[in-house]
């Protein structure tokens, strides 16, 4: 036993931490590069409904988002408190959806156009009227793949 003790009593040279910043910086750059800041600033309140059958949407770059919900309190003076839809960063009317979607499709590479999906992020309290208008517009623009955005919920028996 004493033999081991003797060894440990010898003062070990301290581990050099001078390369620690390098390691951490490497991690830092990795996260800086991969981080994608939120593309849009939400101006409407969207509390997604729950769905047990919700599945993951793949390929983020092929998804266009339409947000529908009540405007945030600070916009309510100007826009009222009725549900509105938001395309990119601005409020829009249902009739703006078709041109916007066509633009989105235009941006997609030719061979991936059929995969473009429109994700409807709708607040749970919104009435179906506005959603239906948007759906009609999407049919007009022939953007038929849609996704009703919902949170994944567990099945309750």
């Amino acid at each position, binding site marked *: 036993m004493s033999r081991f003790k003797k060894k440990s009593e010898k003062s070990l040279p301290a581990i050099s931490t001078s390369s620690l910043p390098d390691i951490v910086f490497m991690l830092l750059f990795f996260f800086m590069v991969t981080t994608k800041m939120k593309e849009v600033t939400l101006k409407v309140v969207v509390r997604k409904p729950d769905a047990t059958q*919700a599945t993951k949407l793949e390929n983020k770059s092929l998804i266009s988002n339409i947000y529908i919900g009540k405007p945030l309190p600070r916009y309510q003076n100007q826009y009222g408190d009725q549900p509105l839809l938001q395309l990119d960063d601005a409020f829009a009317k249902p009739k703006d959806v078709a041109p916007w979607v066509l633009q989105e499709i235009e941006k997609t590479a030719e061979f991936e156009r059929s995969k473009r999906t429109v994700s409807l992020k709708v607040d749970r309290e919104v009435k*179906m009227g506005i959603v239906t208008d948007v759906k009609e517009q999407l049919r007009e623009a022939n953007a038929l793949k849609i996704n009703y955005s919902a949170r994944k919920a567990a099945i309750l028996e």
Partner: protein
Amino acid sequence: MAKRSAPEINTGSMADIAFLLLVFFLVTTTMEQDTGIQRKLPEKQPENITPPEVKRRNVFIVLVNRNDELLVNGEPGDINLLKDRVKEFILNPRNSEDLPEKTPTVIEGLGTYEVSKGVISLQNDRLTSFEKYMAVQDVLTRAFNELRNELASAKFGKTFDELQVLAKTNPEYEKKSDAIKKAIPISISEAEPKQTKSK
């Protein structure tokens, strides 16, 4: 003045600074992935074309009215019972006269399978809440997914969900999952809204 060598800057705290930044980016990174229920909208029909006649027995009408109440085939329905009714409608296990017809179809990997002609017609009012609409969509999707799982378990010994996961890496399973999709297509039609009367 005598030239003095400048003292070396202590780099010991460099790690702390870097860690701070690292933690910031870790926290702000959103790996959030969109989840939801995927659907395909019907194509826009030219106005002068009359839609093909569909036999009454082949349609299962689910109507959600402005008070978020359910009307299933013309009678008030319960959302908790909807799933089993849809499953029975699509399967038509006893070949009943008032449930949908089936067309025997040859499907690769499955042999001949009697594909149901049944269509679920989901109708809503402009004042139906999105939450209720999604709840019904969810139940309908679940009915179809369960049917697919049952068929896949019976034929391939794996549920449809498992097949889909395996299909990503193995084309053999992709064929199987495609076969299941063909055997039980998700036939939900989202009609344009109707004005329903409230009580």
